């Protein structure tokens, strides 16, 4: 086995570990919702190739107000779904769309676009 072949194999192993670590095991940064004067937990989310922020921490039993603004025309992200809360909204490009609901139980709830290409997570504490 030549040196270059060994190098390629080692690179393959390193890349595999990196991919697995980066996408599955690395801890994700999360955003805590700010509580507004009205008592709702408010977060503004930008939709462009993904949700920013995509991991949102909220408290249970308090209304959550998520304002989505979509900055792309790709049809994939035109809807956002919260299947666990039976909430969904169409996001016209450039318009602010607000979803409001109150999570009653703690846990991790996913949200996503209709076909699941963009994903985010709502962590209820």
């Amino acid at each position, binding site marked *: 086995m030549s040196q270059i072949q060994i190098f390629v194999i080692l690179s393959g192993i390193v890349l595999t570990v990196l991919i697995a670590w980066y996408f599955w095991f690395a801890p994700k940064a999360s955003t805590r919702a700010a509580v507004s004067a009205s008592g709702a937990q408010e977060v503004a989310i930008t939709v462009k190739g993904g949700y*920013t922020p995509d991991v949102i921490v909220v408290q249970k039993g308090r209304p959550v107000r998520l304002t989505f603004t979509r900055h792309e*025309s790709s049809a994939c992200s035109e809807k956002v779904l919260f299947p666990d809360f039976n909430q969904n909204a169409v996001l*016209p490009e450039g318009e602010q769309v607000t979803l409001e609901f109150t999570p009653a139980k703690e846990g991790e709830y996913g949200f996503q676009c209709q076909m699941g290409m963009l*994903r985010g997570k709502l962590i209820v504490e």
Partner: protein
Amino acid sequence: MTVRDPVCGMEIESQSAFAQREHMGQTFYFCSKSCVDQFDADPHHYVMTSATTGFNPERTLTRIELPVADLPFYKPVTTLETGLRALEGVHGVTTNAGAGVLQVEYDSKKVNIPQMAEVVRASGFQLGGTNIRIDIENLRCASCVKFIEDELKSTDGVLSATVNIATQEATVDYLPQKATLAQLNAAIEAWGYKPRTATSDAPVDKQEEAHAREYGRLMKMFWFSAIVSLPVLLFAYPQYVPIIRDLSMNTIRWTWILSAVATLPVLFYSGYDFFTGAWAAFKHRSANMNTLIALGTGAAWLYSTFAIAFPSVFPEGTSEPFYDVVAVVIALVVLGQALELRAKGQSSAAIKKLLGLQAKTARVIRDGKELDLPVEEVLVGDVIQVRPGEKVPVDGVIVEGSSAVDESMLTGESLPVSKKKGDEVIGATLNKTGAFKFRATKVGKDTTLAQIVKMVQDAQNSKAPIARLVDTISGYFVPIVMILAVWTFVIWFVIGPQPQLVYALVTSVTVLIIACPCALGLATPMSLMVGIGKGAEHGILIRSGEALQTARAIQTVVLDKTGTITKGKPELTDTVISEPSPVSSDQLLKFAASVEKVSEHPLAQAIVEAAQARKLQLAEVQDFEAIPGHGVSAKVEGRSVLIGNLKLMNREEIALNELEEKSKSLADDGKTPMFIAIDGKAAGIVAVADTVKEDSAEAIKALQSLGIEVVMITGDNRRTAEAIARKVGVTRVLAEVLPEDKANEVKKLQIENRQSKIVNVVAMVGDGINDAPALAQADVGLAIGTGTDVAIEASDITLIKGSLKGVVTAIEVSRATMTNIYQNLFGAFIYNTLGIPVAMGVLFPFFGLLLSPLIAGAAMAFSSVTVVGNANRLRGFKPKFSAR
């Protein structure tokens, strides 16, 4: 003097103002040069008096009627009246409690309606105006809030107005007979802002528009990449193309350099979405289809460019570029996305059809004048005129006139329903014969139609449990494909044939390109959308993807008896006359109905209705007497009539002879017999019963032929229950079940087969409030749409048409949709599990077969189109057993 700068809204001292201007008899002060410049550009824009107020400056006193919701009849409202009179500018107040209005004469220059409204509220009364929220586009400047509020308040008929900059919304209380929405909008426009009221069908139209724009954009991107692809493709394989074949190596090198330059805009224009999408996903530590396409085409371009820039670095024969892969793959995938978008548009056809039922305008009568208003502006309490052939615009109650209304579009009832004063009419139904006026009770998003549309849309966007499994898989899918691509490269490089680098690169790029997470992701939602829409078309509202998935596996259907199998309303079934009889059958019924007309017993209504149906003239009744627990007695046309049960006949010592036998057999059939004696002699029997719906037996047979066990549940006595069960072919009857135990019985059925480890999937069909707990307990609760709101709320599926056939159709829709979902998932899964290994080259050692990245690109693009296409196939679904 403190004044307000009309441009920015700042409060300034008039002496220290930067500048001042005279316009239309008013003096304006400005804080800065920029404000005065803006004013000079369009002074009229800032004039405070509105063109929309409609005040007549010639008349100093204005008269207005303020509707007050709870004016008492019995005592004077002195606090209210003196309170209003105390306002400067109010000249006279008259209370008209009957009409529920305050008539106020006032000087509109000194006092305005919001001030009067304030006094009314402070005295503890509610103003009967109406409330509306108007969205204001791009409301950015905080100072404009005050101006818009003032402008709205100075509009005639406005009681109060607040503008919220955070929600970009104006909330206005106004008197609909004075102001229209158009005037309110004009007030907002006067300040240069664009008002926008939510209209029911706008989202769908908007979405369609957005889709059309996106389709255009994608097609432009496709054509650009397709045109570039053609020459790039020709020069990529010079050995196969005549003329190019004969060019010198040097010339061909130059065409490759040109290809490198030409494919760069393809990457950055046509492939823009892939690269930005991939980067955005990468930042979120996630990967999707964009990542794969961006990696594949990016790697191909970089390698190619490196290869032609430094050919000496590469082993002999490996320094050839793959620009064709870059251009062709991007062209194909973009085309696939465009086709997918087009196919998606068709799947929302059901919603469009429903929204198309909505009337566009309504003829509203306000202040005795007929106004043609857009249906969005109709308010609760408005009286609306509907002529023959017109659509009923909103839900309401008829106050004048009568007609026949075709409600088939919503209830499935094929015959027009006759409506008279006091009857409810539903928006979007079609008025057939007569003209009528009705009072609106539900408008906007509260109408039956809007509720149905909302329900269907929510369900279409909900998730079937199977989709959650798919989500988990696709969360791992893309990184796994990336790892597979890495190892494909490594293996081909280490043990592959010469030229190793080229093989390694081509195979790993092919793996990245052929993998299609989209097909997996689309499989469930697309079918769900079409399937739930299809259900709605057949009068079946499926509330969620979960209900749809569960309905497929229903093993037991529990049917509530009253109102579900039966009509839920007693009807006259038999009239028997004694032998010899003093009267004829019609006379018997006439006597019975005449007496029962006075009675309040629920069964009495059935007898009266039957007599009316036979067009019998009812007689006057004297000496009516109810005998509790027995029946009634009365005098009709001078003859004494007794109607009641056996006990009554025995008490009066009336010989029944063969009638007693007859009554027993009627009771065995589940009917309620009533004896009638005239002048002390037995005359006959009338029997009433809750009759079975015409198509119940047929529907139950169809359910049984699907292999589903049908169980009847009722609170009625066993004899009546079994009689009905026999009639409709149900063998298992749960009778004498208390309302609170219904849910328990359903639970028992669910765990019945626990020993055999099979969980019984139980559906419950009901209509009443008492069915709600059982509907919620069942795996699938189906509410009959003619039933109560509570039952509908507790259910998973609502059958708009009152027929039991809907249960069969619901199961059919569910089965067809789930089959379609499985086909899609199977297809997408097989495609990926076969495609990826072939792309990796597993067939190469045996057949020497390798997949070209171009073919991989085409396969990937059309796999998702196929999924959407297959989902659209569901649109052709027709229930075999349809509820008419």
